[in-house]
Structures are given as structure tokens and as C-alpha cells.
């Protein structure tokens, strides 16, 4: 091939590129076509939802859940502080009374009914701030759409997490809970109440308690204050946990 042919071919190629560049940058049509052309070489911004949903931000406020203790008891005590804190009036709680045969949570009170209305909820998180037992937390799940208003009302069975592997679903009996000897509140603030046969034991049935023993020793969770471990074994004589402040 001669030099001239090379030059002609090169000149043609340069002219073609020049023309192409001119067409893509200086003409309306070309500038339009340039966009998809450019995009072919850029990493795509779109997510392939729902096939491959992206992780949310680490502190994203998604729908709520009601948590459990390690043995499966519910953390929620039905106190309604979440409902009180809610600026959108989206939470309904109905308290209930734990009985000896049917215990749902530590202490006297549990949530008989618990509903969050996601028609109203603005996912602000004031409820989980108000929760005194960390029973209510927010997950990062945001797929709460429904095809009816009723479908947006989440009830307790939907909000409550599954029992943990070593735990059991509620209700438990009082005896089971006692035998485990767990310290649910990380302190000695509340012990499960002693109740007889599902109704309140009359005060007259417990004259000794009144007469002196500030608290019957067997009723105390046998964890000395300060150890902070929730797994206290009911083994000691309770001396260190004695009712010393009397």
C-alpha cells in the first residue's frame, strides 16, 4: 500500500470521526443519541427491586417488632407508653393481667392486644424511645404495603417475633418461669407476683409477711445485686440477697 493510500484512508477515518463527533455534539438528534451511548459505559444506578433488594441505611426506621426474652417470654408489659408517645395515634394497646397459669411477660401486666396502624404510622420512632423494656424496636423492613386499610393494621401476632431457639411460645406457667430463675430486668426491681389459683390471694392469707419478713426469701431472684448476670442459679441460701434495707 502506498503512502498516499494510507493518508487517504487516515484522512477519511479522521473525517468520519470528526463528522461523528460533530453529529453527536452539535446536532439535536446526535446529542440525544449520545445519552444512551454514554450510559452503556456507566455503572447502572437502578436497583433490581424486588429481585435483589438493597440493604437499608444502618439506622433506618422500618416496621416495628415486639421482642422476647431468651426463654420466649414477651418483653412487652402492655404499659401503653408507646401509644402515649405516638404523635400519629397509630398504636393501640390493651393491657391484661398475667395469671399463674398463663404468664406472657414478667411482672403483673402484659399486652392482651397490641396493634399498630400503618395507615397512620409515620415511622418516627418515638414509640421505641418510650418503651421501658425495649420490647418494641423497629426493624429495617419496609415492605408493609397492603391492598386494604385493614391490611395495614398489624396485630400482635404479626408484630411479635418468633420464640428463640431455646425458648417457648407464650403463655408459660408461673412455675416454669420461676424455675428458670431468670432476672428479666437486670436488677431486682420486679419479681413475678405470687398469686394463687388465678385470683388474688387475700391479705389475710399471708399474716406472716405482714408481721415481719419483709419479703419471703424464696420470692427473690437469687442474684446478688451488682453481678448483673441474668442467669442466676437458685442455689445459694440467699444470704447476700437478703432484705437488708429494712
Amino acid at each position, binding site marked *: 500500500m502506498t503512502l498516499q493510500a494510507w493518508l487517504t484512508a487516515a484522512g477519511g477515518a479522521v473525517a468520519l470521526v470528526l463528522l461523528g463527533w460533530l453529529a453527536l455534539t452539535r446536532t439535536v438528534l446526535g446529542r440525544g443519541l449520545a445519552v444512551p451511548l454514554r450510559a452503556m459505559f456507566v455503572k447502572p444506578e437502578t436497583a433490581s427491586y424486588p429481585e435483589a433488594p438493597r440493604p437499608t441505611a444502618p439506622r433506618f426506621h422500618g416496621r416495628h417488632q415486639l421482642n422476647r426474652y431468651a426463654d420466649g417470654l414477651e418483653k412487652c*408489659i*402492655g*404499659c*401503653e*407508653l408507646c*401509644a*402515649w408517645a405516638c404523635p400519629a395515634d397509630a398504636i393501640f394497646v*390493651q*393491657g*391484661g*393481667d398475667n395469671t399463674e397459669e398463663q404468664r406472657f411477660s414478667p*411482672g*403483673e*401486666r402484659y399486652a392482651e392486644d397490641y396493634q399498630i396502624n400503618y395507615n397512620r404510622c409515620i415511622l418516627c420512632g418515638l414509640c421505641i424511645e418510650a418503651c*421501658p*423494656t425495649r420490647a418494641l424496636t423497629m426493624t429495617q423492613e419496609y415492605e408493609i404495603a397492603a391492598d386494604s386499610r385493614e391490611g395495614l393494621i398489624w396485630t400482635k401476632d404479626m408484630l411479635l417475633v418468633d420464640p428463640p431457639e431455646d425458648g417457648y411460645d407464650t403463655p408459660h406457667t408461673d412455675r416454669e418461669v420461676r424455675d428458670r430463675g431468670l432476672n428479666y430486668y437486670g436488677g*431486682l*426491681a*420486679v*419479681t413475678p*407476683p*405470687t398469686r394463687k389459683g388465678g*385470683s*388474688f*390471694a*387475700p*391479705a*389475710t392469707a*399471708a*399474716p406472716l*409477711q*405482714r*408481721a*415481719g419478713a*419483709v*419479703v*419471703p426469701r424464696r*420470692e*427473690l431472684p437469687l442474684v446478688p*445485686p451488682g453481678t448483673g448476670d441474668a442467669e442466676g442459679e437458685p442455689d445459694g441460701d440467699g444470704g447476700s*440477697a437478703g*432484705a*437488708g*434495707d*429494712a
Partner: protein
Amino acid sequence: MSAPAAPGAASAEDLVTLTIDGEQVSVPKGTLIIRAAEMVGTIVPRFCDHPLLDPVGACRQCVVEVEGQPKPVMSCTVPVAEDMVVRTHLTSAMARRGQEGTLELLLVNHPLDCPMCDKGGECPLQDQALAHGANQSRFLDQKRKYEKPVAVSPQVLLDRERCVLCARCTRFSEQISGDPFIELFERGALEQVAIYEDEPYHSYFSGNTIQICPVGALTSTSYRFKARSFDVVTTPSVCDGCSAGCGQTVQSRRGEVQRQLARTNMDVNEAWNCDKGRFSFPHLTHAQRLTTPMERVDGELVPTTWSRALARVADAVRASQDVGPGRTALVSGGRLADEDAHVAARLARTVLGTDLVEHRTRFAPADEAPARAVLLARAGGAPGLTYADVEHAPVIVVAGLDPEEEVPVLHLRLRKAWRQHRARIVVVGPHLGTLDGIAWRRVATAPGAEPAALAALAYGDGEIAAALRGDGAPAVLVGERAGAGSLAAGTRLAEAVGGGVAFVPRRAGDAGGLAAGLAPGLLPGGRLLADAADRAEVEAAWGPLPAHLDGAAPVDGLRGILAAAADGAVDVLLLAGADLARDAQSAALAERALARVAGAGTVVVQDLALTETAARYADVVLPVTATQERDGARTDWEGRAQRFRRAVDAPELAQDDWEAFVQLAAVLGHRLYGSLDAIRAEQEQLGVRAAAHPLPEAASAGSTGAPSGDALLAVVRPLLLDGGTMLAGADDLRATARAATVGVSRADAARLGIVDGADVTVTGAGGATVTLPTAVLPDLVPGAVVLPRTSTEPPVTRLADEDGVVAVTLAPVAVPAEVGA
């Protein structure tokens, strides 16, 4: 140590001027510093202080600084002095530090389980800890623990961990209700509220201790964990439990009543109410509640529509009017509101054309209604004798009334009068009842013989007559069980000694029924059917009254109506809130009458619940609304009319009683009223008679003559908590009911060989029997027994003869031989 006098009551020289936080204020002598501070707008924090209880200074929260005093002063126990200079927490560091320190100490043993405590959100301890406490506690040890909660009664739960030992509950039960079943025990850190070993806190007023508890130590079983203060809707209301007319607060959530509280009305109930008023609301949603109209088809009650039911009643009324005039009767119980009673009275007189109307299920003496009409007209539509008059009366005569069982809040006023100035309470009647602790003198009479004793009280030179003639205006309270002529005798007694008199009925709608003229021979506002001028006044508002009502002698109340019905002279019997089969004074006569009318005519029952009368005899049953579900007004025993508002929705098909009456009239072609306001306007316009009729002459002693043979005459007294329809479903409340007993005098017990507590079989008319334990009453006149009215099954009304007289024989229940041996 009595409560300070009301401000304004004192004259200028009784005023004391002091300085509080630099502000000068003049208050009546004897005012406590804490009240004086309230008058300048400073609320000193407090727990034990309550304006209606004696000062005690138990909680030490209300510390203030008084100039010249080296130590802080408890403002709730120290009265003001001239030129005192007080500095509260607003201006004094000492007071502020004292209050913070007290709060810290109070919270040392407080469990801080506020999230699960029923008081959380309306708790003075929470509020004041936030407003006046330090943020930090220095206490790190273990808190005092008790078993929680313990039931001091079936309806009051005690959590001793939360208690701050303010002694409000114990002081209430000692000072106000007078049944000290609850007390402080032990000492020091172990000090705690408790009850006596074997006696639960069975007081009729125990609910008040829950309400005044400043922490969550006393909570209510029925409200336990049901709601929070922020999610209830609060409606002011008036209690319908008895004729006391207590102010009440109804709190509802999602359209259901959650609890009821006493609403402060210093003229009536002060800040208290009784447990019946507080806890009896479950009947609104009880399974027996009527929710749909029903009619009897082939012997069975089946649901129907209002229009079919009303058409059936209207057909029956027309058929009866074709037979002759005045063959329908309308009996209301004690439940109706004033407006209902007014419409019922007009419906009966103008549309049904009958004088067979009655608002009482008891067989009242014939002169009771006319005498009450006279008192009504004399009072001129205002309250006659009031609670305040009773409280300040030096002598109070009580006849045929047991206030604690019938009108409990009146009992509290009597106790207050007794406690504050040793009012001399004179009980006239066969026994003292629950007044035995506070009565001064007792005039024993046979049952029904009260009028003669009342008439004689003011005369002679006995100590009672001297006391009655002394300074101050005595009060005479005549109750339902006083014999014929008692009210007239009581009125003459009050006139003679310059005092006031009042008739105290038991049921809430009684006074309103009387004022509406819902009794034979009566017209609204204390007017008489027999009086031409009265008739003209009423006809001006109602249109002409049927001619056949002219000059007809009124029947003898419910007894007369039932006797006429039993004789076949009544075709249609309208019962509005009257369960005659159980509640009529003579069940025998009521059943004969109901059976006759149900067989040959039509019995219409409009009521809250499917009562025994409705289930067995009614041809048409109409559901109506309860007090909490409607607007209306009720008149209490004083004559004070108080309006109440709807708090919750009624069952969908239930209507107000007045609406049912108006619609029946409409079906019969009469337009009566379009709204509650129209009824009230007419009540206002009619008012009461300008000049009262003369008092009815003293009637000869009624039918309560001595029974034959060894029979004993029974005083049938209703207990506050019994088998009543409006107590249905309130199981915790009924668990605190007093035991039904047959009260026997010592002499009769000895004669019949009955020992206290032993079961006896009480046999009445027709051989009906009730078995009850005996209570030997030292204060009962021989020849009489005291029986509870509807506390037993069957009710004692079954033991009555057809005149309503209960004459019984007692026989000890034979103890089985092996047990006795």
C-alpha cells in the same frame, strides 16, 4: 382540728393577714398555710393532705419556710397567724431542698414500676416528683419488697411497695365512712397499710380510698390494666344508683365504660360516692341486657322491630279503650329520668286516659304521695331540706330509713354532722340499723307505728323534746319504711320545732316520678287530679284530660293497680323499668295480676335487661337506654334536679324511655314532644303549684296491725348490694355485699330458742320459705324481724301477703344428728 371554714363565711375581723412569697393575703382564721398558699395560686406539693380529711402531717412533703422558725414547717398542719411570713419552694431554698429531700426519701422504697401501675399517668407522686423532685437518687441498695398485689377486698388491691404511708385511706375509713377495716400496722420501714386478720375491707365506700390514694398503692380490681388516663373519654354524669344524686365521672374507652369516679360536688356528695355507684356499670354490657325489641309469639319471645312492637301495643290499647276507659295501667320503677316520668305521666293521662299510674314498686301508704306533693309545692321547685341543712342541724330525726343501705352518701353527711359537732341523731323505728354507731337516742316503735312517735317527739319535757326545741334548725328525715302518716307527722314535727323535713326515697327516679305526678290522683308539680284549678293549669299545657278522670277516687297505689289487674279490670299493663315479679312488695299479688293481664291482655315491658317479669309475662319487650347512654336529668331526695350527659353509645336498637313513650303516643295518633328540650320547656312552664295544698290529715294506722298468733312482723329492708338488675355482672362488687340475715330481737330469739348465727327457716304467707342465718339484734323491738328485700332467692317479697305485709314464723333449721353429736 376540724376543716377550716369556707372562705367568705368569715367576717372581716376573723380574717388573718399574712405574706406568702412576698404577696399579702387575708384568709379566715384557722386556715392552714397550704390552703392560704392555694389562694395566692401556689400549690405546695402534698400527699397526705386532703381538704376533707383531718390534717395529719404524715408525708412531710409540704415543707415551707416560716420566718422566725428555725426548722421547716409542715404547711398542711399549721394554721396561719397574723403577720406570718411564709416562703414556699418558689422563694426559699430551704423549702425547696426540704421538698426534694422528702421526695427522694419517699422514692427510696417506691418500686418505680410506673409503666405497669394503674395510677401511671394520673399519679400525684409521678407529677410531683417531676415538678419538685431532684433528678437523681443517691439510693443504690435493694428496695423493700412485699408480695404484690394483695386483695384487701374483692374490689380493692393493695400494693404495699408503692405506698408512701400518707394514711389517706386509713383516715378516710376512720373519719368519713366510719368502718375502720383498713389501718396502718407495724413500725418504721415496715409500716404498712393492712386489714385486720380475718376481716376483709368490706365497706360500702372502699372505692373512695382508691380514688384518693396519691400513689398506685390501692387500685381497683375492675379497672386493673384496662386503660390509661389518656385513652379514656371522660364525661360528667350523675349516679343513678339511689336518690343521693352523687356527681359522677364516667370514663369510657372504645365506647365501653371502663370506670366511674366520684365527681366533686360539695353541695351533694362532697368528693365521695359509694361502691354501688362506682362499680355497678357492668350491667350495661351484661348478657341479660336487652338489645332488640321482642314480642311473644306462640309463647316464645322472638326479636321483632320497633314498629311491629309499637303497633301491637297500640292495637292492644285501642282494643282496651273500646271495652271502656281507664283499663290500662302504667307502672315505672325507680330508674326513670325526670323527663321520662313527665312524658309517662302525660301519656297515661291524655293518651291512655288512665289514672292507674305508679312510680314505686313498694306499697306506699296512701297519704305518702299527697304529703310529698305538699312538700314539693312548699319548696317551690327548689331543693327543700338539703345536705348542708342536715350537716348543720343540731338534731336529726330519722324515721323508717337506714341511710347506709339506702342512700349511702346521706349516711356520710350524717356521720359528718355527728363527728364535727356531735349532731344528735334520733332514730324513730323498730331498730337502729346501721345508725347504731352514731345515734344519740332511739325511739323504739313497732313497725309502722312511727307517726305517733314522731307526733309526740316535740312535746313533753324529755331530753329529745328539749334538744329539738334548742338552738338551730333540726332536720327530720322520713324514709320509705315509716308507717302511714309518718311524713305528715314528720312535717308537723318540723314545723313545731322550726326545722326542715324531707322524704328520702331509695330509688333514683322516685323524686322525679312524684314531681311528674306519676302516682294515682296526682298531676305534675304537686298538683292534685281532684282539684279543678290544678287540672286547669295542667290542661292548659296538655290539652283536655279525659272526663272520666274527674272525681274518681284514686286507687291505693301499686296495691290498688295490681288488685284491679288481678280482678281483670286492666287490659294493658305498661311496665317501664319495673320488675314487678321480683320487686313488687307482694310477689303473690303481682304474679296474680301479671298472669291475669298476660293471659287476657297485654303486658309491655321496657327495660334495660331481660327481667323475670319480661321473661315470664311480657307480650312486648322494648330495649331502652341506661343513664350512661343518654341525656336527661334526675331529681335527688333534696329536690335538686341535675342533668347528665351521654357518655357511651347504647345498643343500636335501644331508645330512651321518653322516646318509646312518645312513639307509642304517635302510633295512637297523639303528638307529644319532639325533643328533650321540649319536655324540659314544659316542665319549666308547669313548674310547681304556687300554693301548696294542706297536709293530708293523719290517717288511722295502716294495715300493719299486729299479726296473728306467734307470727312476727317483718321490717323488709333493702340492702345496698343485693340481687338488683343494675348490679348484674358486677361480681367483685357483689362479693362485698353484706350477708343476708334475718334480724331477730333478743326476746324473740330467747323465746324461740334461736342462737346468733344459726340458720332459721323463715316462713311467710302462703307457706313460702327462705332460709337465712340469724343475727340477734339487741336494738330490735320484740315482735319484729328484719329481712333483706331482694338479697335472697326467692326474694323476701314472696313471703308477703297480698297487702304487702310480711308476717313470718321462724323455725331453727334442724342440725343433722351426726353433726350435732
